[in-house]
């Protein structure tokens, strides 16, 4: 089962890479793609990135197989991604902000693209319709962002399957972590289909 989940994770991550490469016209590589079935409170340790501030994009997908996507991007990476997306047309962030409004919208668009790449593959694999919410944008301590996303998941059960990918755009030194977390109480369709 874990092997099949891993294959699904790889396929989805490849789709993300294709979409991002198309959008940025740069080399995108996947550094890690792992699937774990774990106690929810152990997930921060498996993500294993900084305790400092990062940009977080949280997206919910709904349908027969609902869940959450959490994208974590370092602040400099988000700024560079926004600049690439805006082709140098972006404005400067206001005093005390890390991104301008336009830059933030550009980064949110990345969240949309990453999420839709994942859920396209999932909707095909499980022959079901999935729709996504607009991304919620935060810039805060990584553990605080994880904490809120995981508390939501934890309400539905103690264990979760988590798809964990790290993606890098080599030319620009951009890195980005993607966590996909099907709702623990609604995973049966996934297991049934992968039998």
């Amino acid at each position: 089962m874990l092997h099949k989940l891993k294959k699904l994770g790889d396929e989805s991550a490849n789709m993300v890479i294709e979409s991002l490469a198309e959008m940025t016209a740069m080399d995108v590589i996947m550094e890690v793609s792992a699937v774990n079935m774990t106690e929810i409170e152990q997930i921060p340790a498996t993500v294993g990135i900084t305790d400092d501030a990062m940009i977080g994009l949280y997206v919910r997908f709904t349908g027969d197989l609902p869940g959450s996507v959490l994208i974590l991007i370092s602040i400099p990476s988000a700024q560079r991604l926004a600049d690439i997306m805006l082709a140098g047309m972006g404005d400067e962030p206001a005093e005390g902000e890390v991104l301008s409004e336009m830059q933030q919208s550009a980064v949110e668009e990345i969240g949309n693209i990453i999420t839709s790449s994942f859920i396209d593959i999932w909707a095909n694999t499980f022959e079901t319709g999935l729709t996504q919410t607009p991304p919620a944008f935060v810039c805060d301590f990584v553990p605080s962002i994880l904490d809120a996303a995981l508390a939501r998941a934890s309400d539905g059960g103690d264990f979760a399957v988590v798809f964990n990918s790290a993606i890098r755009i080599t030319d620009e030194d951009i890195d980005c972590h993607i966590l996909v977390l099907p709702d623990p109480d609604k995973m049966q369709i996934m297991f049934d289909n992968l039998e």
Partner: protein
Amino acid sequence: MPEIVKVAMADLKVSREPTVLITIGLGSCIGVALYDPVVKVGGLAHIMLPASRHAGGSDGSNPMKYADTGIEMTLAKMIELDAVKRRITAKIAGGAHMFSNMKEGATFLKIGDNNAAAVKEKLAQEKIKLLAEDTGNDYGRTVELHTKDGSYVIKTIANGSKVI
């Protein structure tokens, strides 16, 4: 330098002076800091959800995750270190709406509020006085409970630090 004791998500630790109990990056979770000023014993619980009855009833569920069972366990462990229940007071922080711009069902947005309410209810039930709180809003908090004096330091990325 006092020893630093880290508390993970859905975890709790108790210790005597001189130590600093730390939990990094609370979001919608609550950091419940309990303290007995006479023996200088502190306890810090990182509470994730309101009550163990929400756990889907599985017996294997981690009791440290919930307001009711987490607070009970912290009190019991402090009493093992010679704390006396009627002297123990509480300070709480966290319970933020991290994804405040999320257009989704109200239940999700309310996890932080529900956690704060459940923690307060449990403290009242245990007759533990709540001395101070810093809850709600939309930002993360890193907290430190100093067992030398019971001070509770709250640090944020963009909203400064404070001691309650």
